């Protein structure tokens, strides 16, 4: 039986609300009101030096949470916009690609909290007499924790669009604009959403860390959960910390339920697969949205906008002979290419010299050498801790992953723990270290992986769960057990997922070193020997040459790590140990 087609019907009954609407409309309105209120609070008049009212009353926490969540949302929006422009430019124009992709590599390795100290004065100058300048600085810090991996994922998707689909869209005379909306963007969506989730998960850490901003020697506390925590730490108020943890948990949950579940469920259709996946992701909100009549009618508007957008720019030329060949990639003529290369080289050289002069103007050579020593100390910490975390979590993750029931529940928990800003737990650590008179050089180190170890855990769980069942059966059938089982089957099988997790964890740990090598509880301050505490101290003092030096050195270390360790392991994983 051919089904009746409802699409062409525009009659009014469609607009009559149904029961699903009853649930959804209040929710939608409540969200809108909250967003509008929070947004208005961000742009109140403000002068630097004015203290912002903050209290440790838990009743204020929902409001602070709203402000923090809003910052996250704006940063995410910014990251998305940045990603679309940046990744597309890099993928389409080889001349730009040459700059943009290495730049991304460098940006990825700059410690995020470093951005904050460098950019805040600029943002304040941009909006004089308004709080929005400071807000922008905080948002920008969160943005820098989110944007790079999203842009990279998008760029990789754009570069790997299947050739037959490109040919098909060419045959059907899609313009580059149409091709972007019809082919390239949809193709990139699943990867992009996965990276957005990762970004937000990492972002909570930085939302918390970036709300207390120091400008010219004084600290501005932006209303939010992060400032609440900063205040609670200064006040040695343990119950308040507990409340803050609860608030952040609620925030993570809300983001997951209202944003990512629906997005992931929706994006399932963009997955490039030829057979339906076994498990289709679901979301109550998306189901609600798809069933509510009024909402569906309202969704026609963005739907029509999208359609309009997609067909906005058609191929030039009219009639039968539309004879314009439009390549997916725009090349420069050879001579311009050469000029461009020269400009790039000179620019990079000039920038390097400029930074070197700036740093050297107030920092002596011995100190520079010392900073490299700090870097080595922090690098050692990162390596040792990632190794320790792997020793602990790989067996546990495999145990969980091989039991599908358990995996389903715990996988979610691990993701949740990864999103949880570990800096909330630092005060507890400080108390313990002080109480037992421990050496901060050693004992502040675990804080670095406190938040990032979960990436290892949940990737290992995912890897173990994805081990093909025929291989499992074969391994048992051959009587593999004990170490032989691990050496020949499990470890090689989960290695690719493990490397993915370890890369994320290592990057996160470098970033975390800035807050974890210098921790405080009230007046008690603990500082470890390392690059993180060096940068943190320079930031607190507003000493720009030293901030630049510290960030530059950390950047160098991270890039070396990526190049000499992670990328090799990644290549090994994808070339030799890929199953399937």
């Amino acid at each position: 039986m051919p089904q009746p087609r409802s699409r062409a019907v525009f009659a009014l009954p469609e607009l009559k609300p149904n029961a699903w609407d009853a649930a959804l409309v209040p929710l939608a309105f409540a969200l809108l009101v909250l967003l509008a209120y929070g947004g208005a609070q961000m742009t109140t008049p403000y002068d630097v030096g004015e203290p912002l009212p903050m209290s440790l009353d838990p009743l204020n926490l929902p409001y602070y949470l709203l402000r923090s969540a809003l910052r996250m949302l704006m940063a995410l929006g910014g990251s998305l916009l940045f990603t679309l422009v940046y990744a597309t430019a890099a993928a389409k124009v080889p001349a730009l690609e040459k700059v943009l992709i290495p730049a991304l590599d460098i940006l990825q390795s700059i410690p995020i909290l470093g951005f904050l100290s460098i950019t805040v004065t600029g943002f304040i100058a941009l909006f004089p007499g308004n709080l929005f300048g400071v807000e922008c600085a905080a948002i920008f810090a969160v943005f820098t924790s989110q944007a790079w991996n999203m842009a990279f994922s998008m760029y990789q998707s754009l570069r790997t669009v299947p050739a037959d689909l490109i040919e098909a869209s060419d045959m059907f005379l899609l313009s580059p604009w149409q091709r972007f909306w019809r082919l390239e963007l949809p193709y990139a969506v699943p990867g992009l959403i996965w990276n957005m989730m990762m970004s937000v998960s990492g972002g909570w850490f930085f939302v918390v860390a970036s709300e207390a901003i120091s400008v010219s020697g004084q600290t501005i506390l932006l209303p939010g959960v992060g400032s609440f925590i900063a205040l609670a730490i200064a006040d040695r108020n343990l119950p308040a910390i507990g409340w803050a943890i609860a608030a952040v948990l609620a925030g993570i949950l809300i983001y997951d339920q209202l944003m990512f579940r629906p997005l992931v469920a929706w994006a399932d259709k963009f997955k490039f697969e030829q057979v339906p996946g076994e498990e289709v992701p679901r979301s109550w909100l998306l189901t609600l949205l798809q069933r509510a009549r009024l909402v569906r009618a309202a969704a026609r508007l963005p739907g029509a906008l999208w359609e309009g957008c997609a067909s906005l720019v058609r191929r030039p030329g009219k009639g039968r002979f539309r004879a314009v060949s439009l390549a997916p990639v725009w090349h420069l003529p050879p001579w311009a290419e050469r000029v461009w290369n020269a400009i790039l080289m000179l620019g990079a050289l000039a920038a390097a010299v400029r930074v070197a002069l700036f740093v050297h103007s107030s920092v002596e050579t011995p100190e520079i050498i010392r900073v490299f020593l700090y870097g080595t100390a922090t690098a050692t910490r990162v390596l040792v801790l990632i190794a320790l975390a792997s020793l602990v979590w790989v067996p546990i993750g495999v145990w969980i992953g091989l039991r599908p029931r358990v995996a389903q529940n715990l996988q979610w928990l691990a993701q949740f723990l990864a999103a949880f800003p570990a800096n909330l737990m630092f005060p507890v650590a400080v108390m313990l270290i002080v109480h037992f008179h421990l050496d901060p050089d050693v004992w502040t180190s675990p804080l670095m992986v406190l938040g990032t170890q979960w990436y290892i855990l949940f990737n290992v769980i995912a890897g173990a769960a994805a081990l093909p069942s025929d291989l499992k059966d074969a391994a048992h059938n051959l009587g593999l057990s004990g170490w032989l089982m691990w050496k020949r089957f499990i470890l090689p099988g989960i290695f690719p997922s493990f490397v993915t997790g370890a890369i994320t964890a290592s990057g996160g740990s470098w970033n975390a070193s800035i807050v974890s090598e210098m921790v405080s509880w009230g007046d008690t301050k603990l500082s470890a020997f390392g690059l993180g505490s060096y940068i943190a101290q320079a930031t607190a003092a507003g000493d720009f040459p030293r901030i630049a030096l510290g960030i530059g050195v950390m950047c160098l270390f991270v890039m070396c790590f990526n190049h000499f360790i992670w990328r090799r392991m990644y290549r090994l994983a994808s070339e030799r140990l890929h199953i399937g």
Partner: protein
Amino acid sequence: MSTPLLDLGGVRKTFRTPEGKERTVLEGVDFHLDEGEIVALLGKSGSGKSTLLRIMAGLIPANGGNVRYRGRPITGPTRGIAMVFQTFALFPWLTVQQNVELGLEALGQPRREREERAQEAIDMIGMGGFEGAYPKELSGGMRQRVGFARALVTRPDVLLMDEAFSALDVLTAEALRSDLLELWTERRIPTKGMLIVSHNIEEAVFMADRILVFDSDPGRVRAEIPVGLEHPRDPESTPFRQIVDEVYGLMTASARVGAAAGEPLTIGYRLPATTPGKMISLLETIAEPPFGGHADLPALAEATELPDDTLFHLYEGLRVLGFVRLAAGDIFLTPAGRAFVEADNDRRKTLFAEHFLRNIPLAAHIRRVLDERRGHRAPEDRFLQALQDYLTGDEAERVLEVVIGWGRYAEVFDYDYNAGMLKLPEEEEEGEEAGGGETAGAAE
């Protein structure tokens, strides 16, 4: 007669190898497609027929000669020429309806008309009721039906099919071919000419009015066979079988002209994509009854149930090794071939190795390099670079992979996957070192 739909004269296409040298894929191709005819382009894979199709589609430019559609040069994708892809090339995130509408949308047609025409095309191709389905919910045959609907909805003059049926199983492909021919003969589609690129001989004889046999290295039209049969055609009828035989003869003849009769092979010879295991079992089939050392190619195809493309690679492989001889649509075992079949496993390996090193210059080259080298190892890049003087990067890698496969069977050389090095087989390596006389403890 009026202007041909498509008219190609002296078309040339070259690709640049990674080494910067030019490799000619097409040379002096003349072709025309007239109104009301179906033409099939037959050739082995890699003969450049798909490249030619893409030139006609305006997807890639030719390096020389002229390509015209209704008398006007083609410089890019052209309205009026539609294409159906081997891989279907459906957009997985669009429903059947949206996929079909895509071409109309790009032309800026109003929504209402788009929907109506898409509906028509979907019904016509027999996919009514599946408008809302996503491609991943459909079987291969249904997906390709959507591919056809998407191409036909733009009411093209010319329909290009790039191996459009080869990803489908035999029954499904047959059904789809018949349905398409029915639409064509009953003039239910406005399409005025169709071009089928294929390596399936029966398919070509079943559908086409004219068959062009394509030669490789460089690709060019070698022969033209008119098929003067009425639709619908009966694949079991005598005239049909005769044409199939004739095409088989031409296809194998082209293989012979390509190499043995002409200049000797170079190390850039493109080894056919096949394995020793398959070649040996084909040799055995030919040696056994009912063939007894001499087989008619269509009969052999039926007995082995292998697709034509696979078989041609096998024939070519056995021929260059000197185990078979091909003539006029028949295949014969050579004395060497017979000796091989009668030998036991170890003797077979020795024979294979002899023929391999004698007849395949690349094999001899690799062996020589490995023999000369201290440690008897050499990086694969070295050989890839040598191959890239003749072939594109992908093709060079494929050829090296094939030669390694054959070399491993013959135990002439081996390959270390992790290190990316070619080397002599284990025992021989040790033997050579021991025989080198420098080390005292000679093992064997």
